[in-house]
């Protein structure tokens, strides 16, 4: 367990690097699925209020394109 805890960051970096380097090139005309509105990597506009209440009601924030801290009387 302790070994897993220590190794989790290097494991994550290795997996991410392998994922990036195993990518296959995608031409513009092959991006019909990637360009679908539901495939956007950002949060939806309609989720603004959800992200706001989560930043007020939870101690954690950030790494989601929303507030990282400040701008409101939130955590």
């Amino acid at each position, binding site marked *: 367990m302790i070994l897993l805890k220590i190794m989790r960051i290097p494991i994550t970096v290795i997996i991410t690097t392998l994922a990036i380097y195993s990518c296959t090139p995608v031409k513009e005309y092959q991006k019909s699925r*990637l360009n679908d509105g539901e495939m*956007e*990597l950002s949060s*939806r506009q*309609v989720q603004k209020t959800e992200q706001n*209440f989560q930043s007020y009601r939870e101690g*954690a924030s950030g*790494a*989601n394109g929303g507030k990282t801290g400040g701008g409101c009387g939130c955590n």
Partner: protein
Amino acid sequence: MKKICLVVVGLYIHLFAAFSQTIDSSNYKSRKLKIEEVNFVSSYYHQDGDNSAVLGGIGTEKLSDYANNFEVKLNNYDKRKRKREWDLNIGIDYYTSASSDSIDPHTVSSPSHEDLRFYPSIAHVITNEDKGITAAFTGYFSIESDYESYGLSGSISKTSKDKSREFTTKAQAYLDRVKIILPIEFRTPETGGLYGAPNEHDYPWKPRNSFSTSFTLSQIINQRFQLMGLLDLVYQDGFLSLPFHRVYLKDGTEKTELLPSSRFKVPIGIRANYFLGDRFIIRAYYRYYRDDWGLIAHTADIETPIKITPFFSISPFYRFYTQTAIRYFAPYMAHLPTDEYYSSNYDLSSFNSHFFGIGFRTIPPKGVLGIRQINMLELRYGHYITTNTLYSNVISLNVRFK
């Protein structure tokens, strides 16, 4: 003979016409500022629970929030063929809070306190499409009865030549101030808010500053799969408590919340979107968070949009969240008089939460309800429950005009 000559001349002229200049409109880029899209988002949020921070960790947390956000995106191209976008955003929230009554129970005759928050922002984005570089600058402002915020951010993005990878770095600063409205029993002639005192309506302010640097890297893996990694480094200093949060100690005495004057946060997240088959999409998200107040949190989120038709989709979603308490938290009447810092705000306690619901999205080619300008309509409902009695419901609507 004449006919043959005429035919030959006609063919000759026709041959010339094939090589004559034509107007190439494919690279035309308008220099006139035009509206790209308009978004209107409206939400209703309602919560309740039994651990109000205003009452020291007990009592109702009933609160309703009506949030509205209006966004206009404009763009044009400059002389150097760079795309320039302006993003104007205005947010107005109206909320009522039953527990805020208890800051000063003698002043409010209605069941709940109310407040209005106004928060505009303006962003300017410059994109050099040939070089794949985008720079953005944003100014923010927020005001409500007890909090003011002034924010500024700048970011730069670089897209790879094959457009499969994008790296963004962003720096952001909020210079805020908190109005020090103490619970009625703590007010003195010096604190403001004391009935009959000359400064009855004057409250002091204390600063709260937040600085962050963010990094994102997005990568297309293949025709169906793309990933994004996000990392934020956040530092806050100043008055990080809330002045009207009560804390009841073990010995029966009472204080107002006191937290350290600095906080360092590190959230790191990953998003993965996968297009399964022809109709199913999987949107997954995980975040690990840690700060120097002792809070560790994990967030895992999955959403599975189902494309019923190319223009209508249903998206059920589920989010799990878990956090440990900050080291300065203790419940009602559990803090010791010798504690250096103390809070009974259950938002900073140890708990798990579940958030689940469903969304509907329609983008008909002829416009919503046949109105061509209404490009998209999205409706989303979610129910939120926690292991510390708080629960809430939120319903949101997004209408996009193009």
